[in-house]
């Protein structure tokens, strides 16, 4: 017996609440449990996000001009189309880009990135959520990247 149910029965036995009230309270206790599907069943269908959103909030930097806010909303469809277009980059251009990237010390081989992989990458963005808070003496910046 749960603690809540025990408390309700205790109040009923002490005459603090009537039998009807006790019944209502117990059914109210049972309702959320019945409404919630068992966790880990994977039956919850998450709606597919439509937009990638980037929000930047920067508080007053001391110049008394007010806060700065940037709000960008990009359709996921646009990302997919961009990825498809990027998949058409000719091999010569990819090799040149690879050389430039490796000169900067970044170990990414662009020739290994295929259109199918990029599509998968965009799909995985659905669960992306990045929160960055930067606080120092003069300014406070908050960056949020998420899908909605």
């Amino acid at each position, binding site marked *: 017996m749960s603690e809540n149910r025990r408390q309700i029965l205790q109040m009923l036995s002490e005459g603090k609440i009537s039998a009807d009230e006790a019944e209502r309270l117990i059914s109210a206790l049972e309702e959320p449990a019945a409404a919630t599907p068992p966790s880990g069943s994977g039956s919850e269908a998450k709606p597919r996000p439509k937009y990638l959103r980037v929000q930047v909030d920067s508080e007053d930097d001391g110049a008394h001009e*007010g806060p*700065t*806010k*940037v*709000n*960008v909303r990009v359709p996921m*469809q646009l990302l997919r189309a961009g990825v498809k277009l990027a998949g058409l980059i*000719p091999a010569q251009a990819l090799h040149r880009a690879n050389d430039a990237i490796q000169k900067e010390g970044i170990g990414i081989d662009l020739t290994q990135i295929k259109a199918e992989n990029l599509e998968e990458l965009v799909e995985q963005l659905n669960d992306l959520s990045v929160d960055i808070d930067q606080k120092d003496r003069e300014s406070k910046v908050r960056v949020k990247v998420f899908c909605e």
Partner: protein
Amino acid sequence: MIPFVAMVSVRGRESRTFRLWVPLFLVWLLLIPLAALLSPVIFIVCLAFRVNPFRGFAAAWQLLTALSHTECAVEHGSAGVSFYIL
């Protein structure tokens, strides 16, 4: 469907909000003859770089149609600029 209208809104510190509706369909109308003229050149360039031109056109078209509902807004104090593609 490709976007037909974009909206640019500019708000000054002390002035009123200035909203400009940009008829993108006019831009598309102007670009259609240009694209028709350039298509053989684009086709040859695609073949030279071993890119399937039809896949290229399809991807570019998809990019155009996906532009709808793109939004960008920047505010600084009481001033701000926003851009929205309908």
